[in-house]
């Protein structure tokens, strides 16, 4: 036998007791939606997991009304300390139900259980713990004493990190004193509804968080609702632009975290084995369905051939298959639509003359699968070097000098992430300053921490999530501060400029919902 094939090690699903049907979560209760219910399926098999309620315009109205009432009567009146207690409680419940959430997320999204277990769910808990700590310290957010919450936040999140994106949105909003109506992606609504059960367990006051499942058009209605004070969206650049246009000229605050085409720069003095790992992690983590994926590898020409050889050897050990197997490295693509997008762009890569390579791997016959793939001989003019594939497809280009590396890395409409691999610290620091990307990782990739702001430049969006900047996006300076410092109008502008919402900012994953 081959030891390397490893016997199957499937995670048990017995901890997850799925219901046949799930409702919307409005005003603290599960209710049926007015729209036509839809099924959520397991991308790895195509099998149905549960039927989800679908919200219509009436449900949007009810949810926003509930959030407004909860804001006016309860949540904005609580002390920061008490808000923090609720958030700590939620964080602990997420940890307690971590295994269940990991299994649900892996089933519903198609990503490997080792990622949901070791990364997604712990990060969710960390985000709630971190912002729980902020709830009674808002005066340290950089907006002067007594900053105020904004009101009702409409939040629309993508399918690539369903629960983690929920945490990135809900935790800072609640800590700052806002109430929330959240719309998860239509292909991955399951864990958001399980999270609603956790909110009930935590005795969170009614209406503070409302969760509406349904199509992107419903998300559009939600962000357009006049009762909404703040819109936060993570998803595709196209949808983000539509949202920005739809609410232009209104008082609503907006943060957008959109697509990316991250550059990973590998210099000839890089710690080579770790750089290989970083490149693998940068593009094959979550099947490459990551807004900040390192999908463009820029490798110094002098080490290109050796690097590609080593990368291919490493990719031979990637295990593609059942997401619930604990040894799976690469799982299923989230949807048939996304699989088609990936295949279309990969075909374009071949048509343009780039060389496609994948390791030997047998893909399951059911569900949505795409083998880990690299393209060599890619030119900057190729579509696969410019467009976001949002799949396990890496484009490899070369550079000769640091200046050329920077020029090529920045030559993209996006600006979310970048990586630098070099043993020379002074070079890393100098280059990081010149990269137009919201996050620059040095000798590592895809690291996320609640204390660290995350967001993009250019078409990757604006605003920041995480850290002090992340909570600032849900706050405004107090009236007192505004009236004592400068004339109100001027002050509002200057304060706005100081908050992350107005900085070049955010990013994130492609998302299909919200129109």
């Amino acid at each position, binding site marked *: 036998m081959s030891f*390397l094939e490893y*016997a199957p*090690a499937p995670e048990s699903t017995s901890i997850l007791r799925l219901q046949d049907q799930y409702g919307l979560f409005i005003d603290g209760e599960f209710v049926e939606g007015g729209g036509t219910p839809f099924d959520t399926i397991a991308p790895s098999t195509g099998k149905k997991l549960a039927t989800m309620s679908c919200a219509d315009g009436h449900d949007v109205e009810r949810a926003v009304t509930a959030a407004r009432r909860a804001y006016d009567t309860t949540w904005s009146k609580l002390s920061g300390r008490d808000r923090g207690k609720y958030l700590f409680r939620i964080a602990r419940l997420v940890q307690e139900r971590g295994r269940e959430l990991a299994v649900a997320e892996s089933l519903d999204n198609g990503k490997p259980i080792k990622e949901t277990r070791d990364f997604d769910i712990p990060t969710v808990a960390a985000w709630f713990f971190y912002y729980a700590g902020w709830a009674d310290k808002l005066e340290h957010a950089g907006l002067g004493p007594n900053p105020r919450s904004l009101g009702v936040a409409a939040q629309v999140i993508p399918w690539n990190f369903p629960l983690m994106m929920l945490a990135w949105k809900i935790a800072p909003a609640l800590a700052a004193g806002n109430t929330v109506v959240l719309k998860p992606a239509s292909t991955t609504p399951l864990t958001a509804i399980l999270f609603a059960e956790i909110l009930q367990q935590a005795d969170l006051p009614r209406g503070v968080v409302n969760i509406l499942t349904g199509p992107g058009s419903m998300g559009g209605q939600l962000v357009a609702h006049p009762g909404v004070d703040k819109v936060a969206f993570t998803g595709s650049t196209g949808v983000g632009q539509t949202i920005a246009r739809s609410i232009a000229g209104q008082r609503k605050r907006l943060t957008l975290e959109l697509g990316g085409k991250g550059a990973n720069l590998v210099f000839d003095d890089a*710690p080579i*084995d*770790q750089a290989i790992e970083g490149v693998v992690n940068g593009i094959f983590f979550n099947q490459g369905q990551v807004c900040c994926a390192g999908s463009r590898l820029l490798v110094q020409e002098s080490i290109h051939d050796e690097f590609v050889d080593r990368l291919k050897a490493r990719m031979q050990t990637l295990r593609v298959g059942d997401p619930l197997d604990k040894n799976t490295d690469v799982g299923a693509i989230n949807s048939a639509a996304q699989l088609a997008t990936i295949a279309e762009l990969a075909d374009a890569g071949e048509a343009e003359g780039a060389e496609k390579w994948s390791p030997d791997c047998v893909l399951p016959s059911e569900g949505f699968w795409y083998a880990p793939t690299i393209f060599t001989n890619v030119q900057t003019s190729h579509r696969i070097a410019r467009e976001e594939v949002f799949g396990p497809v890496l484009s490899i280009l070369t550079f000769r000098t640091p200046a050329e590396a920077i020029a090529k890395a920045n030559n993209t409409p996006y600006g979310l992430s970048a990586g630098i691999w070099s043993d020379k610290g002074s070079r890393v620091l100098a280059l990081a300053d010149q990269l137009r990307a919201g996050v620059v990782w040095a000798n590592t990739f895809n690291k996320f921490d609640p204390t660290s702001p995350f967001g993009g430049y250019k078409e990757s969006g604006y605003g920041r999530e995480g850290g002090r900047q992340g909570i600032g996006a849900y706050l405004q300076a107090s009236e007192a501060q505004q009236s004592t410092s400068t004339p109100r109008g001027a002050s509002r502008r200057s304060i706005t400029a100081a908050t992350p919402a107005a900085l070049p900012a955010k990013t994130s994953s492609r998302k299909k919902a919200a129109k």
Partner: protein
Amino acid sequence: MSIVRAMAPAQRAVDMLGPDVSESALRGFLEGLPGVDAVGLEQRAAGLGTRSIKTTSKRWALDRIIELIDLTTLEGSDTPGKVRSLASKAVTTDASDASAPRVAAVCVYGDMVGAAVEALGAAHGDPDDGKIAVAAVATAFPSGRASRAVKLADTAEAVAAGADEIDMVIDRGAFLAGRYGHVFEEIVAVKQACRRPDGSAASLKVILETGELTTYDNVRRASWLSILAGGDFIKTSTGKVSPAATLPVTLLMLEAVRDWHRITGERIGVKPAGGIRTSKDAIKYLVTVAETVGEDWLQPHLFRFGASSLLNDVLLQRQKLTTGSYSGPDYVTID
């Protein structure tokens, strides 16, 4: 039954660095190796450690671990009696289950080689033939603090007494002082001392004592230095210094032998030693070998565990797989 290497001891260095293997050429080569990022290396090792090995894979792994063990006793209190006991355990690992494999070798101090050879009797031989080799630590193990003449005499005596494998320590002081040439020459000299009158030679394992080298960059350089000087194996530790073997250090050494194989086609062995006590830990090493250099490296001529207490834990796990229930320490024999 020793491994005969056709190559002259320093031929590898000549091939890589040219006819004059000078101190500065060595330095230039070693310092030109790619750096090691500690965070990334440890992260990769941790990732390999999460592989879940079950059922048939686990059964295979447990048997293979036994076949790769250098069953070791390295105490000041060692006696011929203790060595006989160890040898007996090496042959009959599980008294209750004749299907349990034998270990690869017994590892003893040089003065115990004769006793080990005698105790093994007909079982003494090449692990590839299902027999058990005798490994001896030499060169003023574990400190290596002795004159070169003493180290060479130590080695030659062990070989003469019948040792198939010599586990030598490098001069860590010289290495840390940057005297790479000194370390290189010493390994070359010990390699010569491993030769037998009939032209064959004992296999040479070079112990880096990574716990004293401290940095991963040092470990990588010492690995390459040992390979260039003719080592057949590179070994992490004596077991007398903490930390002994760790997964990141072993991964790094496997990467060195993988790269050497890539360049020359030649296969060098790796031996993590010290601190590996449980089956669970040992399986992580098997996974790391299989996913770094390939599973064909999981054979006694290319990979060993230096351990004394690991064997019994593996046997208990093996019994559990067979019977379905855990037994206890009284169901395996003490050495």
